[in-house]
């Protein structure tokens, strides 16, 4: 199993020259995930190149309809990456990550599948590329993130901000497919959040489901499940929920409108890449924060204010010090004359 699932240790190697599989959502409803990822990658010196002519992974529609289709569609993209000379694919969308990894596992373990796939997708395929998600990648780059955060214009802008890391299903389950983190009590995203200088709150809904693909088809379910998650995060003092999945994002972000309408306090939903971006001092615009339904302005404002306050404080301390020094100098003058 371990040869098909990417363990963090394996992943430690080269963070450059990675094949980037954005997936449909990052080209559409979640383009801010794409934007923020590219911006952060550039900032952290992670080299990513989009796979040429990639196609959809089939998402849940693929494998709920037909097992083979659910394997073949991801396989085509892995084959492309292979052909284009990569050994690692970055799939930031948790759904894509899950489908790609699941396909890898199926092909490696199910009888005859490895032989059958090349014919189905009409391409040679050795099942050699590893699949990794954005959280994993950023966890491995945590040290760099810390340094950058400390070195940014207003050092550690996220200091004291309480964030709830939400993994949902597809990042951690099934364990044999994902396996880069603990399926019941994962820590990778929390590590990234702490690396950003923010506080990762300890809460209960980290790995509960948000309603996934039912966003449009059974909105009622999605709202029910989403509320449980948002309420628990808020109850544990979170100022925002951090996600790494376009589905989770739209389910939690878009569907909050209903609650807001009922006059409830909205809770911003941020992509993990946006959090890192803010930490290392990138502008909200460059991270597409304005694209969310739940307004992130208040949060940003709070950060700016906090930073401002800290600057002011520092300035005050400096001035006091200067004043004292001046006084001392003056006294000495008196004494000498």
């Amino acid at each position, binding site marked *: 199993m371990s040869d098909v699932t990417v363990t963090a240790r394996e992943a430690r190697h080269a963070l450059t020259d990675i094949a980037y599989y954005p997936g449909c959502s990052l080209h559409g*409803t979640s383009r801010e995930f794409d934007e923020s990822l590219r911006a952060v990658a550039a900032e952290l010196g992670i080299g990513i190149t989009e796979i040429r002519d990639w196609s959809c992974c089939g998402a849940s529609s*693929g494998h709920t309809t037909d097992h083979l289709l659910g394997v073949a569609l991801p396989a085509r993209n892995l084959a492309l990456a292979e052909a284009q000379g990569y050994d690692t694919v970055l799939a930031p969308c948790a759904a894509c990550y899950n489908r790609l990894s699941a396909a890898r596992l199926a092909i490696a373990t199910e009888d005859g599948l490895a032989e059958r796939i090349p014919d189905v997708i009409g391409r040679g395929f050795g099942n050699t590329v590893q699949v990794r998600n954005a959280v994993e990648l950023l966890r491995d780059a945590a040290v760099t993130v810390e340094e950058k955060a400390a070195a940014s214009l207003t050092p550690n802008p996220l200091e004291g901000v309480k964030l709830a890391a939400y993994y949902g299903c597809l990042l951690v389950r099934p364990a044999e497919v994902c396996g880069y983190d603990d399926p019941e009590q994962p820590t990778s995203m929390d590590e990234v959040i702490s690396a950003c200088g923010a506080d990762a709150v300890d809460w209960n809904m980290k790995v509960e489901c948000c309603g996934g693909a039912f966003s*449009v088809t*059974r909105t009622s379910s999605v709202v029910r499940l989403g509320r449980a998650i948002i309420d628990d995060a808020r109850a544990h003092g979170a100022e925002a929920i951090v996600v790494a999945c376009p589905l989770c994002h739209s389910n939690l972000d878009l569907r909050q409108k209903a609650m807001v309408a009922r006059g409830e306090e909205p809770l911003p939903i941020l992509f993990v890449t946006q959090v890192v971006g803010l930490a290392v001092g990138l502008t909200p615009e460059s991270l597409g924060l304005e694209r*969310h339904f739940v307004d992130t302005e208040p949060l940003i404002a709070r950060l700016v204010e906090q930073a401002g306050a800290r600057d002011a404080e520092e300035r005050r301390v400096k001035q006091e010090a200067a004043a004292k020094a001046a006084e001392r100098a003056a006294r000495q003058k008196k004494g000498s004359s």
Partner: protein
Amino acid sequence: MTSERRRTLAGEILEATGINAATCYQCGKCSAGCPMASESALRPHAIMRLVMQDRRERALTDESIWLCLTCETCSARCPNDCDPARVIDAVRELSIETGVADIPRTISAFHKAFLEQIRSNGRLHEFGMVMDYKLRSGELMKDVTSAPGMLTRGKLSFRAERIEAVDEIKRIFEKCGVTP
């Protein structure tokens, strides 16, 4: 032996997934954690039981199998490695194959619309998908309020992204015998 099995539902599931439904000892841990349990008539352990008892009719035609979110919570916590999520996948496939599926219109419409997008563009064109879905499902007015927001936020675009090798994708669909 296999031909013997092929006749039973459990046998078919075994063939398709390698999972022996008889390994389920009905402890209910799957259903205890299922996020959709409150909305579906058949919970994971019940579906396992129906498979065990070869109650094809009940298992394949119930709406519940379409309410599975494939969140994998059941499989992740199953003490006996029965992988209910995978079994439910397989049951769904069977119900489509045998044409007895009573798929909630909205859900089948969604899957169909989704797959059609992929087949014809290689990628999902959400706007097109939503339009197609609305036509298939008849839920014309649903979410229209959020569409403008989507557009202004640049989350939806009218123009579909089409990959160069669309024919490759069409071929894959043919090979898998799937026509949305």
